[in-house]
């Protein structure tokens, strides 16, 4: 399989809006403690940051991405799913991507919490699936539920388990037919029967997302020509090789000469978007000057309309296909309805 390097692709002179880059932003510290961005109380800091990102036209905010990096251990941080929940109540269009690993978090709890945040945000939530969570690893170097080594294969299993659980209880099954006394059409509810890496019977106890599935981001494996499975978008570091098969977003950490960097990334036909890692001291400059200027030049796109998946123009994947899975409820309820 061939790989291309972002900087080797010839530059296109004009970038049309249809090809303009999607924009994700990672803010160091997530606004939890930094007074330059937010306020003293963490919830007010998060709310202020969400509003500023939204008014700057940013497509999505990736929350807690640094947790996947060993340099992050010891930094003050809060659970990204709760940060996203607060942000959801203070925004209407901003995408919210939650970073989380199947490390101390079991996939059942992860699947449920991510869907719950997505319901709070009416379909604006995604998941950056990490291999390892350095913020709460403490002494645990393996999966605390299964003992598995925390490599990309383990993340493959965790992503597959979560995505399978998301499809076990379709939201459309909730009919609420008061005349017939039927709350949900249970013929649509299927077992998860996850067996790879975890043993999970399912179904999930919360109905699925209004956006089909939440979009999933995964980090490309350095040096691998193959995109990690189960991802809608793959994150590659700027100037690293691009794997085949899945749209990529290019993470840009060096924000000097950022205008030129955006042009260079936009010239790569494999690039779906850009993911900017922004430190608090350059936050104002990036959201008030760099992004508006790049949008005027047609290099980056605006927030768009609809769910996060619709804004990013990502189709709902075919897999995992649960049509062959057994229905959970083959009989009518007992009169007490208890399971």
């Amino acid at each position: 399989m061939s790989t291309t390097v972002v900087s080797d692709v010839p530059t296109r002179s004009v970038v049309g809006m249809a090809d303009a880059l999607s924009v994700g932003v990672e803010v160091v510290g997530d606004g939890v403690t930094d007074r330059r961005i937010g306020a003293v109380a963490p919830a007010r800091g998060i709310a202020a940051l969400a509003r500023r990102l939204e008014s700057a036209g940013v497509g999505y905010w990736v929350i807690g991405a640094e947790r996947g990096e060993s340099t992050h251990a010891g930094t003050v941080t809060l659970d990204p799913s709760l940060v996203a929940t607060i942000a959801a109540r203070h925004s209407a269009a901003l995408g919210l991507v939650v970073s989380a690993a199947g490390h101390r978090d079991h996939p059942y709890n992860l699947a449920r919490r991510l869907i719950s945040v997505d319901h709070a945000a009416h379909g604006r939530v995604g998941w950056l699936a990490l291999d390892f969570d350095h913020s709460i690893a403490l002494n645990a170097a393996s999966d605390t539920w299964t003992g598995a080594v925390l490599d990309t294969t383990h993340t493959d299993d965790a992503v597959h388990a979560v995505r399978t659980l998301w499809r076990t209880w379709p939201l459309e099954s909730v009919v609420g037919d008061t005349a017939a006394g039927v709350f949900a059409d249970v013929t649509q509810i299927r077992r998860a029967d996850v067996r790879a890496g975890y043993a999970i019977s399912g179904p999930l106890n919360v109905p699925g997302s209004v956006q089909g599935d939440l979009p999933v981001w995964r980090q490309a494996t350095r040096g691998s020509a193959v995109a990690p499975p189960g991802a809608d978008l793959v994150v590659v570091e700027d100037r690293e090789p691009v794997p085949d098969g899945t749209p990529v977003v290019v993470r840009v950490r060096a924000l000097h000469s950022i205008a030129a960097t955006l042009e260079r990334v936009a010239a790569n036909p494999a690039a779906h978007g850009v993911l900017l890692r922004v430190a608090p001291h350059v936050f104002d400059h990036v959201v008030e000057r760099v992004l508006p200027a790049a949008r005027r030049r047609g290099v980056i796109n605006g927030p768009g309309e609809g769910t996060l998946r619709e804004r990013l123009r990502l189709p709902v994947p075919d897999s995992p296909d649960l049509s062959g899975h057994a229905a959970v409820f083959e009989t009518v309820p007992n009169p007490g309805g208890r399971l």
Partner: protein
Amino acid sequence: MGRRLMGLTENLILNVNVLNVGIHTGSWQLSSEPPTAFADPGYYVRMAKIAERGLLDALFLADGPALREHPALRPSQALEPSVILASVAAETEHLGLIGTLSSTFNDPVELAHRLLGLDQLSEGRFAWNVVTTYSLPAGGNFGLADYPDRPTRYRRAAEFVDVVRALWQDAADAGARGIDHQGEFFTVVGSLPQGQSPQGYPLLVQAGGSPQGRELAGRAADAVFSAELDLGAGVEHYRHVKDVAVATGRRRSDVKILPGLITTIGSTAAEAQRRYERQSALLPVGHDIERLSQVLGEDLSGYPLDEPVPGHLLGEVRDPAKFGASLGFRESVVRLVESRGLTLREAIREFSGAGHRVVVGTPVDVADTIEQWFLAGAADGFNLMPDVFPDGLEIFVDEVVPILQARGLFRTEYTESTLRERFTGYPLPTGAPASARARLA
């Protein structure tokens, strides 16, 4: 305000248990909310705003990581509780937030991190209701080939709570040195990536009335969500938990006893009765007897409704370690049936399918029973369980709360900034459990 006990004035506590759209099985058919409300955090925010308008102490959420009710019949608790409560925190100012999270189906470090964060995001309004969870479907969701028996679950719960509290105490210490815990279930070395909350760290609530549960509550909990059907049993269990608290060096008032109270309220007795009958008519045939059978662990179908419940169904549980349902719920039903010699039909009416006490009546009736139990020393307050949301909560807030205020039993404004101050009078925790302190020294 409140009642005077041993020279101290104690205030009545009123929480609302938002059990999706109502405790009643047919609540979704009567609610003005849409059927998808149970999967919308915004719905819980709306209920929280009604509760805050009524100056209630806290919003309570039950939970377990598996479907609990047959979805053809009714909604279950669905959304993850820390997400619901973060949504509520973002749009309320005073209301306490109590979430049920299992010690069997969570990792103690991840949960300690997330819940302390929720306490920080709510500026000191969160309490953790610790449960060990008995649910075979939950076991299947977490790859447990053999479901852990009751003693194993409680040993894990005790160690889990020790680890979580030690991590929280460590986070509250300015020079956090980290914990070093080696136990039967967990090895945890290090510190959480955050500091303390405005109330230090979350309060602890314990639910359930098994003997192990009451000991855990007296030793470590700030509040207990209990199930009591009978005033005499309520007084006895209240004293027991308070005695355990005193025996472990705490004040009697350090642990609040809050039984569940299911309410069906009408402006007149006749209206309340009509509301009750309209709800009952929605139930599938055999619903209530099936529920009571599940609580007792005995099949009651086929027994005559208008004769006393046969005594052989009410004896001791043969093997408590293996009993598949709640020992606390079963004990409270058995006590009620035996003390009043109830027929099966009467038992079903008193029990109402949920294990908690039911009051069907006017706002004055509801205020009277709350006052009676509070002043008798059977309760420090209640976990209210309205039949149907939102109107079952609205009538409580608009009609019952003013009566309790007029009687000097309930607050007329919020005065404390954290849940800890409201429940305990202390701004910060008075101390971690002895085992955790030893490790921190």
